[in-house]
C-alpha cells in the first residue's frame, strides 16, 4: 500500500518521488544507516564542539600531564580520555578537532566538485581539440601521486590548514572532470538531448539544465568518497607537519605531536587515530550506501 502510494507520487511529481525512492533504498542498507548516524554526531560536534567539550581545548592542566584515561590506574573523571604531554584534555581536543576535519571535507568537496563539474561539462560539449587539451591536462595532474603533489603544493604555498585544503582540492578535482565528461559523453547521444537541441535550447541550457541532472548520480558518490579522502589526506599532511599547525587540535597534527610518546602513553596516539578512522569509515559506509541506492543496475537485481 505504502509502496503503491510512493510510486504514484513519483509519477505525479518527479523530484520528491526520486528523493523518496532514494531514501527507500538507502534505508535498506544497515551499514549506510550506521554511517549516517555517526556522520550526524560528527556534524553536530563540528558545529557545536566548543560548547560540548568539557574543557577548553588549549587549556593546560600543569599538574595533570600525560594522565591516563579514566579506566586505567591514575585516571580521573575530570579527564575521561586522559591528557597529552602538555596537560591538555584529550577528549576536549578530539571534540573540538572534529570541526577541522569537517571543514576540510566540505571545503574540498565543494571546490573540487564545482570546478570539476564545470570543466567536465565544457570538455564534454567542446570540439575535439579543446576536449583533448583539457583531458591531457587532467592526465598530467593525475600522473603525480596525490599526496606527493599536495605536499609540494603546500611547500610552495606555506604550511597551513587552508593551503592544505586548496592543495587537496586541486589534486582531487581531475576525478570529477573525468567522471562528468564520461557521463556527458554517454548522455549527449540520447534522444532527449537531441530533441532539446532541436527545440532550440542553447549550449548553456543543454549543459546545466538538460544533461547535468542526469549525470549527478556518480558525482554524488564520488563526492562522498572524496570527502573521506580529503579528511585522510589533510590528516596525513598535518601528520607530516604540512597541514594545520600546533596547537590546533586537528587530528593528524595531534598524532604528529604525540609521536615521541608512543611507547610511554598509548592514549595520546590511539584516540586521534580512532577519531579519524571512525569518521572516514562512517563516510565510506554512507558512500557505499549512496552508490547502491543510486545505481539502477543493482536496484533491479
Amino acid at each position, binding site marked *: 500500500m505504502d509502496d503503491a502510494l510512493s510510486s504514484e507520487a513519483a509519477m505525479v511529481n518527479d523530484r520528491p518521488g526520486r528523493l523518496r525512492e532514494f531514501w527507500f533504498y538507502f534505508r535498506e542498507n544497515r551499514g549506510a544507516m550506521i554511517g549516517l548516524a555517526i556522520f550526524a554526531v560528527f556534524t553536530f560536534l563540528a558545529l557545536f564542539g566548543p560548547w560540548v567539550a568539557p574543557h577548553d581545548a588549549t587549556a593546560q592542566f600543569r599538574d595533570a600531564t600525560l594522565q591516563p584515561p579514566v579506566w586505567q590506574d591514575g585516571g580521573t573523571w575530570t579527564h575521561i580520555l586522559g591528557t597529552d604531554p602538555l596537560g591538555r584534555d584529550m577528549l576536549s581536543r578530539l571534540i573540538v578537532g572534529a570541526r577541522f576535519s569537517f571543514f576540510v571535507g566540505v571545503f574540498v568537496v565543494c571546490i573540487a566538485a564545482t570546478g570539476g563539474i564545470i570543466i567536465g561539462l565544457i570538455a564534454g560539449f567542446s570540439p575535439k581539440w579543446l576536449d583533448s587539451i583539457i583531458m591531457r591536462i587532467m592526465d598530467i595532474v593525475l*600522473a603525480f*601521486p596525490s599526496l606527493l603533489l599536495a605536499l609540494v603544493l603546500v611547500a610552495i604555498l606555506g604550511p597551513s590548514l587552508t593551503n592544505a585544503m586548496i592543495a587537496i582540492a586541486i589534486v582531487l578535482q581531475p576525478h570529477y572532470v573525468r567522471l562528468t565528461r564520461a557521463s556527458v559523453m554517454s548522455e549527449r547521444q540520447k534522444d532527449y538531448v537531441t530533441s532539446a537541441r532541436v527545440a532550440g535550447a542553447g549550449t548553456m541550457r543543454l549543459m546545466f539544465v538538460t544533461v547535468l541532472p542526469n549525470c549527478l548520480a556518480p558525482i554524488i558518490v564520488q563526492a562522498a568518497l572524496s570527502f573521506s579522502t580529503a579528511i585522510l589526506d589533510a590528516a596525513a599532511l598535518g601528520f607530516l607537519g604540512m597541514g594545520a599547525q600546533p596547537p590546533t587540535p586537528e587530528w593528524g597534527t595531534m598524532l604528529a605531536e604525540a609521536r615521541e610518546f608512543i*611507547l610511554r602513553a598509548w592514549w595520546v596516539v590511539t584516540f586521534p587515530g580512532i577519531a579519524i578512522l571512525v569518521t572516514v569509515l562512517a563516510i565510506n*559506509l554512507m558512500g557505499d550506501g549512496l552508490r547502491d541506492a543510486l545505481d539502477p543496475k543493482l536496484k533491479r537485481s
Partner: protein
Amino acid sequence: MLNYILGRLLTFIPTFIGVTLISFSFIRALPGDPIQVMAGERGVSAERYAELSAQYGFDQPIYVQFWEYLTGVLQGDLGNSFVTKRPVWDEFFALFPATLELSLFAMIFAILLGLPAGVIAAVNRGKFFDRALMSTALVGYSMPIFWWALLLIIVFSGNLQWTPVSGRIDLLYYFPNPTGFMIIDSLASGQEGAFTSAVRHLVLPTIVLGTIPLAVIARQTRSAMLEVLGEDYIRTARAKGLSPGRINGIHALRNALIPVITVIGLSVGTLLAGAILTETIFSWPGIGKWMVDSIFRRDYPVVQGGLLLIAVMVMIVNLTIDMLYGVINPKIRKR
C-alpha cells in the same frame, strides 16, 4: 594493434612535456630565491650572485630555461642536490631499490591475501564470511595508515619487542649492496643473522603499505567475481557438472582477473603516496622519505627532479597496463 600502441605512445609525449613543465615551474614558484637559499645564512655578494645565476641559467629568459631543462632531462641530467651536491639522478636511483623492495613486498602481501578474500566473499555472498571480510576490507580501506603504523609499532615493537622500529637492517651488519634489495643482498652476504634482521625490518612497513591495496583488491575481486558468476557460461559449467572449486577457481576467477589487474596497476600511484608516509615513519631510506626530507630542507633540485621521475614512473606503469589491457581484452583496441 600496432595503431593502438602507437596512439597510446603519442598521448604519452604531451603528458610528459606537461609533467616536465609542472616540475620545472615548481622551483620557480617555491618561496625564496634559490640562490639565496643555496648560499645559506652567510649570504652572497652581488658579483657571486650574478656568477651563480649565470652558472644555473637563471639570467636567461624563462622559455630558454625550460628548453635547457627539458633537453637536460632527456639526457638524464636533473641538476645537483643543494645539500649533498650529488646529481639528483644518481641519488634517485641509489634510493629507488629500497622503495621498490618495500612496494613489491607490500603488493605481494596485498595480492596474496586480497584475491582469496575477495573470492571467498563472492562465493559466500551475503553469508557470515562475506560480511566479516567486507567489513574488514572497508576498515582497511578507511585506515589512516600513518596511525596504523604507530599502532603496530606500539604492539609489535613496544610491547612484544618482535620487530625493530626503523631502518632496513641492524647496524651490526655491513656488506655491499649489488642489487639494492636488502633481502637478496643480506642472503648473498652469507653473514649469520643478516637475512633474519632484514626480514624483521621489512615486516611492519610491508603490512602498513599493503593495507589499503589489500582492501581495494579484496573489494574489487569480490565485485568482479559476483559479476562473472552471474554469466551464462558459469551456469553452463555448473550444468555440465563441474565441481564448484573448478568453476570458481578456473572459469570465474580467470575472467574476474581483468578488472582486478587494472586496479593493481592503478594502485602504483597510491603505493608511492603511501610510501611517503610509511618510509617517514619507519625511517626507511627510500624515495618517499628522501622527498619529504628534501621538501623540509628546501632542496629544490631534488624536489623538482624527484617529482618528475616519480610522475614519469607512474605514467610508464599506467601506459604498460593500458597496453597489456589491450592485449588481454581485444574490445578495448577498437575504441
